[in-house]
């Protein structure tokens, strides 16, 4: 009888010890790319990012994924053109990976290295600054990834034969919740 109680106790308690490292879940997000064209500026916004952070031994591994199709610039023609030049049908997901110490959540600013996979290419961005604000158990993170089209070997899309600028900074606004 005691043996059965001990096994039941272990079955109940062990998973909670195993999960003691903790996880972070992306609660909500707004990712905005900015494109400059000689005739006008445009932005594409996505709220469809999914993200997770898994912490172990004081380090958290984060993965954020967003469908290329989910970016909306308010112009279906432009979105389809962006989808084509970024090879979004062949490589439908943009992923961002980073690693942060668990203690980073308590900081007001962090500089982190990002590995971005997009359009079938991988680009590394070193020491990208982000602002952090923790409120009500949730951590709000804002910053800008200094992406360029050349980083992902994307030919600049053009309108009326004029190509857009190489720089496509991506503004990041995310809310993370510990689990």
């Amino acid at each position: 009888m005691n043996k059965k109680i001990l096994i039941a106790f272990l079955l109940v308690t062990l998973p909670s010890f195993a999960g003691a490292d903790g996880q972070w879940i992306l609660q909500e997000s707004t990712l905005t790319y900015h494109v400059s064209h000689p005739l006008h500026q445009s932005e594409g916004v996505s709220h469809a990012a999914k993200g997770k952070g898994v912490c172990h031994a004081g380090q958290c591994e984060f993965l954020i994924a967003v469908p290329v199709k989910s970016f909306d610039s308010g112009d279906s023609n432009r979105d389809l053109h962006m989808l084509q030049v970024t090879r979004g049908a062949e490589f439908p997901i943009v992923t961002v990976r980073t690693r942060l110490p668990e203690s980073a959540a308590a900081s007001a600013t962090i500089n982190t290295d990002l590995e971005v996979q997009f359009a079938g290419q991988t680009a590394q961005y070193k020491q990208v600054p982000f602002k952090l604000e923790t409120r009500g158990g949730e951590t709000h993170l804002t910053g800008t990834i200094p992406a360029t089209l050349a980083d992902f070997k994307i030919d600049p899309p053009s309108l009326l034969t004029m190509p857009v600028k190489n720089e496509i900074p991506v503004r990041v606004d995310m809310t993370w919740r510990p689990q």
Partner: protein
Amino acid sequence: MLRKIFRRRHSGVAGLVLLVCLSVTFAPFLMGQTAGIGTLTGRVIDASGNAVANAIVTATSVDNGQTRSATTATDGAYKFDGLPPGNYRLKFEASGFKTLEIPSVTVSGTETAVLDEKLDAPEPTTKPTPAQQDNLPNAPSSSTTAPSLSDLGLSPEQTQGNPQEQALLDKRTHMLKIHQRMGLITTIPLIATVVTSLNAGGKNTSTTSRDLHTALGGLTGDLYFITAYYAIRAPRVPGTETRGPIRFHKVMAWIHGPGMIATPILGIMAFDQKNKGERVHGIAQAHGPVAIVTAGAFGAALLSVSVKF
């Protein structure tokens, strides 16, 4: 004598109009025609000689940049049918293999080009080693604790690429690029036609001005219908809702499209009446107003995609 000259001029104009109509009707078909249709096929294997399935083979035309993609079958075979003859740059991509690029493969319209390729294992990664990564405290790692796409609830269907859809998008962009360029080119004779209309109508009796106006109008119509062809024939992407300035652009097409058909018809009638020494009368009087509305709608369509409202 005067009647003879008019008749001769009239037949010249009729010939020009016929030429314009013929070229408008047949230009798109002539453009789509090729000297022959080629086929490119082959097999993709790994270093051990085993077939590589699901490799993406992309053929890009060196001549016009047009791209086609194919995925290898379980036996590693791929095939491109209906390729216009020319030189193609080929790219072979497969998960777990080094991407291979072949700078130029010639496809003829008479023989099937065969290109078998072997994919090598990837080179040692340039990513930092775990020891190096400790020096970069927040560099992404590939440890087993790192979350995966499936951890985020993304299914393989959502994460897998669709080469067919990409090929459709490539074709669409290619055709719309030509549409844009032709639209810009069309603007030049369109403006010139509007400018020469000032001397072609009214009390002016000069046949030279009218002939110039007619010739420019014919050229505008010719270029316009080639422009329209590339927009109409550009493939639609299923499930896409038209939003933004492109809606206005399309609405304008419903005005300048019929206008570009009506304007030359009314113009021929007006031209005929003027050549007979008559005042332009009846429905032919609408030539000017219809032309102005048509040119205005064309300009608005162009501006709608150029300037952000």
